[in-house]
């Protein structure tokens, strides 16, 4: 929710502290702050198409604080008043104005104005006001500016008034042109009813929608024509124009679940539907209506002829009980009774106290407070978590249970690790599988995998060309442990894949590696040959089926990644492999040779491995694989030649003989 600092200031007498201070207080006491940005009138910074040539020089500068309001506080804090109330508690400063303090008055009068609601569950509170003799025109400077700092277009004084009140106290309201409603016996008005299946409505802005029977509409009380999708968006039929003289204002509360379903189904999301789907407090429509009507009178003239309402609002909040002991037990603080009294006073909560038990009445708009733990959170966040101690857990009474599946996975990793296998992870969402997702993002990831083999075979293909990069010249050996989703259910499986490298007898060597691996696995787990699914390059079997066979009282020692290791980002450009072999001077050590080669090869060298050495007639020969790669480009032959030539030249100067 974007909050204007200047707007927030209108709730307080004394100047508020710096915006950074406000942001910090809110961050550590209430909500996450997404951003704090300064705003200047007519700046390029915010482009919102200042409408009808209005300049906004009255409010020169402002600061926009974007507060992240989560679902639990959407009913009271998607408004400046809500944030002001929070700030009042966090800074211990009183509010100088609070629209929600005015007592509300439900009104049954309906001489001119019709109001009926078919489904009270869908629309528990509804209020209407008829204001006659208004002059529709541009909004005053201050109002247009207030809206424009928050990126809202100024439309006209009536519509702006409704948007202002929504942003000020959180109640969406709507204005209909009274004279566009059908009159009968001197009366016009609204009937809130379910839409007829297939009913058609053209919304403000021109969008057409076909409605279904669960959608509620505000309809013309006499003709029955749909005027507005309740809680979501108004229709064109009773739209205001510059000629409008009389307006009917509506402010209501709608069933949050039904608004959410409607908005989802019709694929419309508005500021109004966002608030209604989070449930607004019963009292808010009354305040909203009063505020809008007053503002319209101030800026557009007119007379309030009639106010009508339906519904029984809950005007007081149910009590919640807690105790000092319980608060401290949950939070881990050692707060006293007077600490609690202090915090509740700061929060502006009404309370009664009997020794250490508190009976608390939160303000009616705090729909999020229903249980004791909600009060405890209020205490904790206002007190502040910065002084929360770091208490170690008491020593555990029993040693933890050994989990069979984790044990099995450890055994597999240990066994395969000893045979030179590298563990990989691949995607569970694939283009084929027994189970299809209802709402996949990508068409090639729309199914749940029912085997690991496909992923491993793909991994063998993609990794074969990479083997020199990892100094693997004998055989690519990989495995995955993961879950698959088959017609018999979810299973944890292991799949190993082998591809022998080099030119000679690849199929036989692959087969031999697999055979040795299978033998080792059968020995360390109790699997039988028949439980294994084979392809020429892979083996797959279920671990889930082995869980019952596990008998152990401890886990194997678990390997960790080497201490102090830092990852080196991989280049997106291809690598090249070059070999160099030479006779070395008799006093050269392997260590020195390696260091020398690394220095000479320079930054393009990403890997160096010795692959051969032998001594003949007192002389030692060494052979190295060098892997060269750039982080900036694909290396050309000249780049590579240049490096190899440089190495050759330099080591020959030192008495090495390149072969």
């Amino acid at each position: 929710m974007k909050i204007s600092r200047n707007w927030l200031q209108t709730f307080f007498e004394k100047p508020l502290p710096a915006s950074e201070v406000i942001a910090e207080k809110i961050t550590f006491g209430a909500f996450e702050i997404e951003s704090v940005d300064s705003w200047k009138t007519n700046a390029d910074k915010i482009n919102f198409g200042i409408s009808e040539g209005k300049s906004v020089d009255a409010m020169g500068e402002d600061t926009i604080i974007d507060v992240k309001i989560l679902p639990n506080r959407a009913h009271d804090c998607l408004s400046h008043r809500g944030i002001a109330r929070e700030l009042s508690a966090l800074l211990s400063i009183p509010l100088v104005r609070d629209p929600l303090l005015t007592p509300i008055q439900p009104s049954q009068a309906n001489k001119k104005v019709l109001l009926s609601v078919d489904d009270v569950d869908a629309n528990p509170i509804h209020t209407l006001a008829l204001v006659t003799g208004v002059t529709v025109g541009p909004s005053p400077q201050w109002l247009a500016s207030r809206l424009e700092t928050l990126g809202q277009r100024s439309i006209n004084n009536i519509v702006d008034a409704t948007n202002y009140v929504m942003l000020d106290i959180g109640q969406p309201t709507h204005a209909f042109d009274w004279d566009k409603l059908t009159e009968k016996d001197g009366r016009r008005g609204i009937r809130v009813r379910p839409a007829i299946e297939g009913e058609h409505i053209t919304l403000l802005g021109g969008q057409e929608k076909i409605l279904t029977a669960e959608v509620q509409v505000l309809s013309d009380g006499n003709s029955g024509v749909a005027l507005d999708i309740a809680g979501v968006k108004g229709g064109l039929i009773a739209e205001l124009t510059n000629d409008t003289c009389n307006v009917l204002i509506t402010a209501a509360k709608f069933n949050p679940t039904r608004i959410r379903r409607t908005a989802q189904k019709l694929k419309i999301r508005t500021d109004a539907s966002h608030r209604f789907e989070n449930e607004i407090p019963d009292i808010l429509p009354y305040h909203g209506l009063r505020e809008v009507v007053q503002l319209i009178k101030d800026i557009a003239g007119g007379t309030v002829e009639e106010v009508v309402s339906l519904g029984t609002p809950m005007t007081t909040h149910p009590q919640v009980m807690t105790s000092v002991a319980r608060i401290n037990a949950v939070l881990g603080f050692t707060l006293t009774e007077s600490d609690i009294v202090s915090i509740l006073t700061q929060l502006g909560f009404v309370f009664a106290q009997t020794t250490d038990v508190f009976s608390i009445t939160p303000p009616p708009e705090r729909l999020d407070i229903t249980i004791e733990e909600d009060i405890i959170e209020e205490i904790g966040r206002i007190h502040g978590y910065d002084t929360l101690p770091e208490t170690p857990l008491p020593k555990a009474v029993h040693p933890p249970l050994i989990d069979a599946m984790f044990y099995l996975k450890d055994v597999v990793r240990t066994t395969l690790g000893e045979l030179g296998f590298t563990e990989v992870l691949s995607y569970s969402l694939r283009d084929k599988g027994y189970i299809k997702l209802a709402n996949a993002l990508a068409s090639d990831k729309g199914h749940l995998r029912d085997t690991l083999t496909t992923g491993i075979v793909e991994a063998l293909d993609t990794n074969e060309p990479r083997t020199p990069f990892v100094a693997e010249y004998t055989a690519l050996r990989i495995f995955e442990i993961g879950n698959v989703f088959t017609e018999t259910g979810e299973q944890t499986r292991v799949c190993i894949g082998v591809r022998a490298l080099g030119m000679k007898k690849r199929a036989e060597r692959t087969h031999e590696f697999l055979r040795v691996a299978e033998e080792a696995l059968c020995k360390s787990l109790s699997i039988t040959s028949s439980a294994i699914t084979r392809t020429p390059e892979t083996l797959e079997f279920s671990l889930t089926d082995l869980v019952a066979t596990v008998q152990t009282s401890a886990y194997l020692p678990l390997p960790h990644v080497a201490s102090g290791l830092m990852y080196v980002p991989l280049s997106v450009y291809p690598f090249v492999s070059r070999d160099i072999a030479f006779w070395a001077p008799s006093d050269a050590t392997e260590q020195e040779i390696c260091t020398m080669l690394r220095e000479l090869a320079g930054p393009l060298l990403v890997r160096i491995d010795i692959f051969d050495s032998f001594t003949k007639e007192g002389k030692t020969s060494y052979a190295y694989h060098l892997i060269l790669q750039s982080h900036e480009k694909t290396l050309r032959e000249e780049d590579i030649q240049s490096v190899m030539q440089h190495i050759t030249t330099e080591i020959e100067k030192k008495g090495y003989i390149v072969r």
Partner: protein
Amino acid sequence: MMSKFIMTKNAQPPLNPMTGAINEIRDIFAGMGFGVVDGPELEDEWHNFSALNVPKDHPARDMQDTFWLPDGRVMRTQTSNMQIRWMETHEPPIRIIVPGKVYRNEATDMTHEAQFYQVEGLVIDTNISLAHLKGTLAEFFKHFFKGNVEVRFRPSFFPFVEPGVEVDMRLTGESVPEKLRGRWIEIMGAGMVHPNVLKNSGVDPKKYQGFAFGAGIERLCMLKWGIDDVRYFHNADIRFVSQFLRT
């Protein structure tokens, strides 16, 4: 008879960083008396949402993007399903971590993947508080990141905890990678398990209380080892895995 082809027992193969991280996490929490468990990735609505106090048709369900199956089941969006499953079948006291794969219906980029790993923690007993949560996390970060650690909580909201907090961590010390040193980093969500969650799992909230936390393991790895692209964890690239040598 010896095989003609000899399997080279080379210097040990690399350790997949996800396995390495999970092993470290297991060992650190085992030192605090935590067991490790996991369960299904394909979940029913009850264990993934309703039991966790996220009712049907409630905006709280929008807090994550979910993969749905036509029959109403889901790919679990967090490892918290195991909180319910474990509490449904075990009496307190409880001390478990759950490292497991979760799924989010989000577009993939350098810092987002549709499938990733989380580690859940759950402690339930008669006298567990938010201060115990702070102490436990401080101990974990100290061992996992190996530096001087400060932990701070900011108020937040998750349907399955009350109070709910966001957890930030700050590391100082020479052994800490420069990129991380001295900065506050948002690292996980946590809180006191909501009484509704306890009730839904058959645990008496009048007798028992406790905390829960959930952290993305890829995120922990990326901070610890300076990995810059989350997609390497699941695209089976041996060039990535091969960098992670064992102790």
